[in-house]
């Protein structure tokens, strides 16, 4: 099954950049990675009909400890994730992806996985917190196992 890994986030905002940093490691390992940053709509122009989409992004939650990884699949991702602050300036990444799925039948059929890394600090700065940085090997393992 062909797979596209989407790296989301803003690397100027500390832990919000973890998706991009993980995405770059995976790209170096030869995986098909698209950095969308804060603009999920970039996906439409670069999408080649991949059957599996794996989204990597930071999340804010008090349910889990910083650095922990949360995996959501399919509809569960759309139901549980709520865009808190708008990317592409008006719409969260998850809503943006919903919109793209409504206008692209191939994308609508794709298997969606969301890999969220619990952020500790979302503030100006380019360094990840120790908790998030220390768990990057596990995040990589999880994404690699999802690629299959």
């Amino acid at each position, binding site marked *: 099954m062909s797979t596209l890994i989407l790296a*989301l*986030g*803003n690397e*100027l*905002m500390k832990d*919000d950049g973890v998706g991009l940093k993980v995405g770059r490691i995976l790209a170096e390992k030869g995986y098909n990675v698209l950095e969308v*940053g*804060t*603009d999920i*709509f*970039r996906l*439409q*122009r670069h999408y080649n009909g991949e059957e599996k989409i794996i989204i990597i*992004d*930071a*999340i*804010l*939650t008090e*349910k889990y400890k910083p650095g922990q990884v*949360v995996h959501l699949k399919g509809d569960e991702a759309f139901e*549980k*994730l*709520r*865009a*808190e*602050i*708008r*990317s*592409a*300036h*008006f*719409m*969260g*990444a*998850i*809503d943006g992806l*919903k*919109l*793209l799925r*409504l*206008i692209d039948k191939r994308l609508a059929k794709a298997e969606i996985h969301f890999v*969220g890394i619990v*952020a500790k600090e*979302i503030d100006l700065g380019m360094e990840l917190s120790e908790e998030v940085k220390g768990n990057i090997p596990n995040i990589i393992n999880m994404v690699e196992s999802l690629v299959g």
Partner: protein
Amino acid sequence: MYIPITVDHIARVEGKGGIEIVTSDEGIKEVKLNIIEGPRFFEAITLGKKLEEALAVYPRICSFCSAAHKLTALEAAEKAIGFTPRPEIQDLRDLLYIGDMIESHVLHLYLLVLPDYLGYSNPLAMVDKYKKEIEYAMALKNIGSKIMDYLGSRAIHQENAILGGFGKLPTRGQFEELKKELKEVLPMAEYTVELFSKLEQYEEVKDKEMIHMAVKPRNGVYGIFGDYIKVSDGFEFPVEDYKKHIVEKVVGHSFAKHSFYNNEKHFMVGALSRIVNNADLLYGKAKELYNQYKDLLRYDNCFANNFAQALELVYFIERAIDIIDDTLAKWPIKERDEVEIKDGFGVSITEAPRGLVAYALEVKDGKVNYADIITPTAMNLAIMERHVRMMAEKHWQDDPETLKLLTEMTVRAYDPCISCSVHVVKL
């Protein structure tokens, strides 16, 4: 009795802002646009930095208009060090800027403004019934992004435009690809004009005293770069004199300053202001459409800004095709010239999608010694607040939801860019 009506966070605008309206039995007591985006100190953080380093920082002010900030800062820097880019390089910077203009306009029109008029809370809810419109929006947005990818190296925070020219130019094949795709989306831009020609421009904010400010474009072609500012009252001034005529003032309820023309008058910047001041410089299909619809491009109604953006979509797509044709006719083009970083002071004011953006930079010993930036939204805030008040005065007795919607629509007509930079999701 005083009743406050608040919109804590204006939806579908860029960044964090709110509206606060206080009514009493007699009518409106107070209207405030609360800009709650935190101060970001971009000028201060670049002081003492090497010029090249500072030029990489400025576009971070906004990911929506990063090309506008990059190219305006770059022009101010090149003026400061006494360098003038070759005309063919300037044309390609125009093209990069046009990519930003197309992307920004189309997202504003289709995803921020249109849901209000069609009765939806967000674009996602529109897709079932208005799939074609969303598809057009995505196709138009994509060509804007692609231009920025090819000319700027990436769609956001481009680093390829540098002192002296560009780091690397797209290939001839990439220019030809852009031209082909621009031609393909042109009918979608024309459809946008037709679509927005049908939308109401609310008379409640009709304001005969409106003043518009825009760049007087260089070389007599409607566009983005220029050395003078035109005011709709007939006055013109060189960009270097901007501080004499655009005066910023601190207001208590906003982290963003308000700007005044000649210290006292509210003024507007943006697509409508460009049309009001420079419509005679339009050409091609955009000129035809302007002649057909000029009654909808009224200087006295900020809602006409939406239609002006639609018209500009057509114009800038045609203009981009022309620039590519000129570029290919001169091909191959040398990507940059050597620059010597000397001490000096430079001012650039350009037309960002939302209107004038001003940069003044002083360079000393290769480092930034002084920086001053005024963004279009800071220029528009004072008049925007006035028009929100006018709307509120007409509808203060309506139900609060109607009042909120109409005042939000007034704000959205200005396409404000309050600026956000963090993006996270909450579980």
